């Protein structure tokens, strides 16, 4: 396949960036999108140019590192798929593909296609600890959890924190991410002890990081590689408003 790439190039966070056009030739349809970028970077390095910086790690769709905004959609045209699991067979020979970094005030560009997503880490850290007295392996199973609750909690825990929800949202809202992180603990008995304080602190941190607010367009869910449900956002709203009304925290 021969393709034309328009890639966002930006030296660093303070530099002005621009879209640069690169033709790529002889791309196999079986290559992943990132492997295609590897080919491009090899070429750039051979020519003595600066390779395109992009985030990646496991390349098997579970780490949440890859983050490319491809032709107007985070992680490209497929549903429920990360950029690393997107293959070139999803494109046609001769296509022009525009690749941009996630755009959000809370995700400043580090270089080219890499953005700083530590805002997510700070939100998780603000949630604090969970009181779990595990003891040995047998004790861990002493608290019985219904299959349905366990499955629901797991569906929230499937969030890999890639930030596609923020990238897709017209408000750059992190509500889907935060709702998944709140839900995975709120649904389980082990998460109950600190539930109120946790949701209050995590929402406060989310707002402090400068994410937008949720207008329920559903774009986040549609673009989420793990297809996290909007039900978690409703649960977050419920948990937050309930906690605000009933917790003992007057200063969060």
């Amino acid at each position, binding site marked *: 396949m021969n393709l034309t790439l*328009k890639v*966002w190039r930006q030296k660093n966070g303070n530099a002005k960036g621009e*879209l640069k056009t690169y033709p790529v030739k002889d791309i196999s349809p079986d290559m992943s999108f990132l492997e295609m970028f590897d080919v491009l970077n090899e070429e750039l390095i051979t020519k003595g140019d600066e390779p395109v910086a992009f985030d990646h790690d496991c390349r098997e769709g579970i780490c949440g590192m890859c983050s490319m*905004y491809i*032709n*107007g*959609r985070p992680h490209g*045209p497929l549903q429920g798929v990360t950029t690393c699991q997107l293959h070139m067979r999803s494109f046609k020979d001769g296509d022009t593909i*525009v690749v*941009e970094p996630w*755009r*959000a*005030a*809370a995700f400043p560009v580090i270089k080219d296609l890499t953005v700083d997503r530590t805002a997510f880490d700070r939100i998780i850290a603000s949630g604090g600890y969970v009181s779990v007295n595990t003891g040995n392996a047998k004790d861990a199973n002493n608290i019985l959890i219904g299959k349905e609750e366990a499955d629901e909690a797991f569906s929230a825990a499937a969030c890999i924190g890639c930030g596609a929800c923020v990238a*897709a949202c*017209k*408000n*750059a*809202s992190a509500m889907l991410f935060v709702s998944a992180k709140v839900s995975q603990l709120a649904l389980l008995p082990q998460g109950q002890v600190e539930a109120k304080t946790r949701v209050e602190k995590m*929402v*406060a941190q*989310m*707002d402090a990081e*400068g*994410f*937008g*607010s*949720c*207008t*329920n*367009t*559903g*774009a986040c869910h*549609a*673009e989420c590689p793990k297809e996290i449900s*909007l*039900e978690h*956002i*409703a*649960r*977050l*709203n*419920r*948990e*937050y*408003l*309930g906690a*605000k009304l009933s917790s003992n*925290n*007057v*200063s*969060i």
Partner: protein
Amino acid sequence: MSWITKTLSSSIGKKLIMGITGLFLCSFLIVHCGLNALIFANDHGELFNAGAEFMAHNIFIRTMEIVLFLGILLHIYQALMLTLQNKKARPVGYAVTNGNANSKWYSRSMGLLGTLLLIFLIIHLRHFWFVSRLTDEITSGQETLFGEMKEVFESPLWVVLYVLGNVSLAYHLMHGFQSGFQTLGLNHRKYTPIIQSIGFGFSIVIPFVFALMPLAIFFKFIQ
């Protein structure tokens, strides 16, 4: 800041205000539409004028009128604040976006639809509310509200504008109604589909009945 102001100024708190005021305004639409539909009795506006007379002098209705205006102002103010904040959350935009791939255009255009509604509302208030509340044209008996309606809807310009206003309303409600429940955290696998169906029906029926009024009067179906 107290915990109350902190809650209401958080992103979820602001959305709570949007949701509550929005759903409250929906309840007003039912009353407004139901009462105006009295013109379809086609009795030279007798029933409608009697209804308008009741609304003008009932103390509960007059009190709710003030609450209604406060609701609208709060909805507008909060929408403005949220929009500004949301714009700030993405200072550098994308070169290419494909919003239609992941969401409905009207869910992404609530601010635009709301602005169109506000323009319509100002014209609408000037046409009817201003005349009935701030002048003595109707109380003095020289004009009825039905007469005022017939006068306004003689003009094709106003008829078109009212129909377009209701198209904006329909799309605004199509997203807003069910979005309000989601914001309040009222989501349930049994009830959310019902809420969505009711919301869809509501967003079609109410603006449709409203839009019929200027059309029926302009084309002289209602005398």
